[in-house]
């Protein structure tokens, strides 16, 4: 067995030298228990200013009523498929707007087999690209990218998650894991905006600033000769207050012209997608917009008739809007969920949970537009070609953003690659 990588197993390969706690360099010491080993790489990424919007179709949207229709099959349901702007590629008739612009930005992955058909497990898996270990909680995609793409002294939040419906909110189990609370998401549920962002009435603007100066002065005197990561983070946290207070305006859609709001449509999902655009435009690296709750165990066709056209409108508007603003060059838009839905139709005309053969999409930076990867069989029961899991999906996301998927995070001295070794990105959907 080769000792270059950690046992060569799929589960966890770690480089020997690093695992044994290689001698700490001065730089590593200054960083304390450094989370990222390769600071030069992180810097390069920041310069490129990448952003991500994830449309999280909570509850599990049906791939048969969206990206991978099977019209005419016993499992296909009543809806037709429709031609898209990519010759030979057809998606559900419920998504005509996305179909018309598929060639511009979007790649489909139709061959996901993620094996986990329960909301909790599926969410953990699809937000992290892997399962957690018994004593190790992995950071989710937002936290990793907040760390990678966020600025230390950023005036805007690094990671925002918008999830207003109550169903499935806690299944979703997002969070920074071992990266720590600095990279935790700002979680918006009912009120769009951060907590404690309004200056209390009891203090004037001048005093608000000047007492902050007092604080800062004391802290600087203290920090001299005592630099470590925790002390540094304290100063950073306060350094961001003014910017975060100011960024409250980003959540206020009334600042957008009515015609823009109208494009996104009158629904809550549309409004949240517009907020997401505002956030990433202002420099927030990662925004997740959840649209719950797709779990159509009954009346699947009625539900999808309701929700898929909304997704069609919101996604196409978002891509158009980002494109028009020149943001799509460095923004990745992801649609995914915890799993898909069964080809089998139950007596309530519903579809149940299904992780064996389902779809997700990537649009924007680093993506090969119009690409379709993978095939499911005639009835959508199994992947027929190009089976991939959550790991491959994440490796592809990282590559699209210009991040090396073999790059390592650290928990103390233990190296943790971004995806498990042996997992490769899906080259066909990458530009």
């Amino acid at each position, binding site marked *: 067995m080769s000792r270059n990588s950690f046992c060569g197993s799929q589960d966890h390969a770690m480089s020997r030298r690093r695992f044994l706690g290689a001698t700490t360099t001065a730089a590593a010491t200054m960083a304390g228990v450094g989370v990222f080993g390769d600071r030069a790489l992180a810097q390069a990424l920041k310069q490129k200013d990448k952003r991500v919007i994830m449309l999280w179709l909570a*509850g599990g949207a049906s791939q048969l009523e969206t990206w991978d229709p099977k*019209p*005419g099959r*016993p499992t296909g349901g*009543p*809806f*037709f498929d429709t031609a898209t702007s990519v010759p030979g590629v057809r998606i559900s008739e419920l998504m005509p707007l996305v179909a018309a612009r598929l060639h511009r930005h979007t790649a489909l992955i139709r061959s996901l087999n993620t094996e986990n058909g329960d909301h909790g497990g599926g969410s953990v898996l699809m937000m992290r690209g892997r399962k957690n270990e018994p004593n190790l909680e992995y950071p989710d995609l937002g936290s990793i990218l907040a760390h990678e793409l966020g600025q230390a002294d950023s005036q805007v939040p690094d990671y925002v998650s918008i999830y*207003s*419906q*109550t*169903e499935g909110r806690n299944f979703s189990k997002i969070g920074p894991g071992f990266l720590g609370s600095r990279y935790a998401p700002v979680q918006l549920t009912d009120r769009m905006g951060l907590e404690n962002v309004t200056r209390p009435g009891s203090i004037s603007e001048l005093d608000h600033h000047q007492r902050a100066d007092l604080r800062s002065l004391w802290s600087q005197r203290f920090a001299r000769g005592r630099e470590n990561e925790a002390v540094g983070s304290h100063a950073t946290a306060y350094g961001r207050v003014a910017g975060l207070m100011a960024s409250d305006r980003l959540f206020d859609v009334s600042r957008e012209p009515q015609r823009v709001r109208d494009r996104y*449509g*009158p*629904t*809550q999902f549309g409004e949240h997608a517009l907020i997401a655009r505002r956030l990433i435009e202002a420099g927030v690296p990662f925004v997740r917009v959840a*649209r*719950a*709750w797709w*779990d*159509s*165990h*009954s*009346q699947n066709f*009625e*539900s999808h*008739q*309701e*929700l898929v*056209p*909304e997704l069609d409108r919101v996604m196409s508007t978002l891509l158009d809007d980002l494109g028009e603003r020149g943001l799509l060059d460095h923004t990745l838009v992801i649609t995914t969920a915890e799993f898909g839905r069964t080809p089998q*139709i*139950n*007596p*309530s*005309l*519903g579809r149940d949970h299904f992780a064996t053969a389902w779809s997700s999409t990537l649009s924007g930076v680093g993506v090969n537009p119009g690409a379709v990867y993978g095939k499911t069989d005639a009835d959508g029961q199994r992947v027929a070609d190009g089976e991939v899991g959550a790991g491959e999906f994440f490796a592809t996301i990282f590559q699209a953003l210009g991040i090396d998927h073999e790059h390592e995070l650290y928990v103390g001295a233990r190296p943790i690659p971004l995806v498990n070794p042996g997992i490769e990105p899906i080259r066909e959907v990458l530009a």
Partner: protein
Amino acid sequence: MKLAEQRKIGRQDILFCMARAADSSRVFCGSSDFKVYELDLAADEPARRTFSGHRSYVTGAALTAHGTLVTCGYDRQLVWWDVESGKPFRRTIAHERWARKVAASPDGTLVASVADDMVARVWNAWTGDLLDELRGHEPLTPQHFHSMLYTCVFSPDGEFLATADRVGHVVVWELASGNPVATLESPEHYTWDPRQRRRSIGGVRSLAFAPDGNLLAVGGVGQIGNVDGLGGKALVHVYDWRRGERTHKFEHDGHKGLVEDLHFLRDGRQLLAGGGAQKGFLLLVDVERQEFVYDTEAPMHVHQLDLDLSTNQLIAVGHGAVVVWQMDDEA
């Protein structure tokens, strides 16, 4: 009432609708496999011809005065079939969106179709000419989502057509003028969940005029807490539609799901409801006494019922089965 199950024909598909000529044991059933199946329920081997022509679920079937079968489907089409040859002799793209039901007038000279373009269209059953378009249902729900127009039924005297939609809006149309003469609101048949799952479920799925034409029964499912499922009570409202008043409300604690089909029996004294969720049900209401007098679980989720009064049989088609019961009236 007593129902004795006489036969059950298991199927791989879902049968959404059926049409049967009076005094005939032959039924024409519309399927999820896009075909129409002719079955002779009196025969040992019931399968007869299979009609192909639709390109999606066949959701409605009706027989005209001329003995032709008219069906509608998710493919937006109305198809006229020559029942002898089994061939379609006319196809019309009848709607812009998914067609949900087709009904024949009592004299069989008209057919009406409804679809999710929220328009009811009235056709000459013989020529297939479009006679009227009835628009009175909002295309979007109050929450800005596409709505559905589920069902229509002619009054016994053939003068009126009732239509009903997703949000519980019911319209009665005067056919001579094409004008709406009554509207009824039954929002209880529509659940919109703003908070937990932010989507809707339900809708009025079935309509029936009483024989005297004065009462209109409206069926669907009551309010649902968890819109992932059909866990609401089977719900029927009855209205004196001319006065715009609701006269009866029937909801069954023990049976959950959609009331997919309604039939008045015994001169309007009883009302039979069939439907289901994961399981199926049959419910019988005594209209005068305002109570349920019979209920049973059906072998499958029932999509449509038919009563053969000549043989006193009740026929149901639905999810994966056709069932025939012998009805025993109580005195």
